[in-house]
């Protein structure tokens, strides 16, 4: 068997087994986003009138629980990506990763196995969350379902890659938490997950359009229908949004490969 694949597969499998053996991690990744969704969605529901945004005509029929749904999925993916890559930091100097680093397995197989592991976990949880759709009156067109799955996969891949890239360069988990609060959470806040881009002030709209995550969230919003309309008209065409998401994944993966292959790391 190909050694590269053998090493990647074994590391991928380890991520999955570890995750399901730690119940706290399952609860930790799915619980908070669902709770945020339910509390923020219900609480803001009364004050957040999408009708006040005439330009966003297609969302006028949706309530906030529905609007916040795709953003919650992005948050689930983000949290899972963070939790599955943060272990790299501790693992490196005292843990499993040490023995991977001195084994003949290539650094590339390590990067691929680790990122695909996190991707799979994020993807599974995002798909599980889709079960809430019928409960809140969101429908997904059967054709759009395949589109949705590919967006979810690419998004999971991209965010796990980003987590890997950050975690590899840090030597403390505190540092990772700082980056999470300064970079990752704001990235999510400004992705259209919480409020539509169209209603934001011009400078914020500019920032949001630069944020790759906005296109993924937009693609998700396109896939969810309420009262016969998608949740968002979309930043770009559906294909454009997927393309940006895929490019983001390719970029974080390439950078992760490059960082991890440098000697002395």
């Amino acid at each position, binding site marked *: 068997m190909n050694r590269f694949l053998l090493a990647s597969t074994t590391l991928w499998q380890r991520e999955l087994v570890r995750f399901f053996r730690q119940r706290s991690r399952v609860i930790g990744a799915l619980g908070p986003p669902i709770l945020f969704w339910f509390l923020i969605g219900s609480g803001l529901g009364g004050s957040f009138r999408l009708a006040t945004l005439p330009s966003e005509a297609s969302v006028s029929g949706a309530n906030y629980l529905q609007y916040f749904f795709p953003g919650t999925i992005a948050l689930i993916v983000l949290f899972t990506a963070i939790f599955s890559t943060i272990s790299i930091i501790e693992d490196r100097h005292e843990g499993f990763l040490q*023995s991977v680093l001195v084994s003949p397995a290539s650094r590339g197989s390590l990067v691929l196995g680790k990122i695909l592991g996190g991707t799979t976990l994020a993807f599974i949880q995002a798909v599980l969350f889709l079960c809430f759709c019928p409960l809140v009156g969101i429908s997904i067109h059967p054709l759009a379902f395949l589109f949705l799955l590919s967006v979810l996969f690419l998004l999971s891949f991209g965010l796990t890659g980003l987590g890997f890239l950050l975690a590899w360069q840090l030597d403390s988990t505190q540092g990772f938490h700082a980056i999470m609060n300064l970079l990752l959470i704001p990235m999510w806040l400004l992705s259209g997950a919480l409020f539509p881009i169209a209603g934001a002030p011009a400078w914020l709209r500019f920032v949001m359009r630069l944020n790759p995550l906005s296109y993924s969230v937009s693609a998700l919003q396109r896939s969810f229908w309420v009262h016969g309309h998608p949740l968002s008209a979309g930043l770009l065409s559906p294909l454009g949004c997927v393309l940006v998401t895929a490019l983001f994944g390719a970029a974080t993966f390439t950078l992760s490969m490059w960082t991890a292959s440098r000697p002395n790391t």
Partner: protein
Amino acid sequence: MEVVVVDHLNHTYPARRTVRGRLSQRAGRQALKDVSFAVQEGEIFGLLGPNGGGKTTTFHILSTFIPPTGGRASVFGHDVQREPSRVRERLGVVFQYPSLDKKLTVWENLEHQGHLYGLWGADLKERIGTVLSRVRLLDRARDLVEVLSGGLRRRVELAKGLLHRPGLLLLDEPSTGLDPGARRDLWDYLGELQSREKMTMVVTTHLMEEAEKCDRVAILNEGQLVALGTPESLKHEIGGDVISIESSKPDELQTAIEKRFAASCKVVDGSVRIERERGHEFIPQLVSAFPDLVRSVRLGKPTLEDVFILKTGHRFWSSDLEGERA
């Protein structure tokens, strides 16, 4: 045959960077200064020294974990820096910090390890079975690592390092955290491995009694090689016995002894030390000559700690402990 060759090895850790990329005030630290030695096939080679002495740095360089900043090191003729993958194939590494995944079973840990070394299928299964029965853990194969005691975990680490049948086993402080019983077990096993498989081993340790069990020992202090040889030959350099005298005025006593007996002695950490043949005959003369200056006298055969004191002029543990491992 020389399995490991370390040639004028130098290593300086870079100044540590903070998250924001600013340099911390601590400048680069030289951890190894011009260290050279060679390890012969089939021997247990000890790297002895206090914390910060450079043994873990040497271990990290030999295990291809970090490249040296100067000099060369090779394993089975392959340079650790230029051909790390060739070195890794032949190398079994047992880390000081656990490298086991606690959430996985013993068997699963070994399975992943095998896959990383390109082993799989029936061959891998058979090897895991063999290596586990050899460290007498076959009955615990399905247990999660987190339920095992420290001693058993270390045995799994050892099994992990041996799985791909390496030619050289590197062990970093293998008995750290083990109780005396488990420590003895481990060394019995290493001895077995040496006699039965002709395995070459490089062991770092800060324990004298462990270093005594090695065939040859390199003593490292503050990044420099201060002594190299078999424990016996090193102790032999001291010659005879070691007498140490507790005194309220050690400096005064030292001068007095040197004047009266023309014996060389030195003050180490407040006690006067004399190395000479037939120490037991010398002690009565000493005590009757300076009854007021001598509080207590100890006579002993030289140990590796005495070698360390001879070579560095200070006690093993008084060395600067601040320069911790990086």
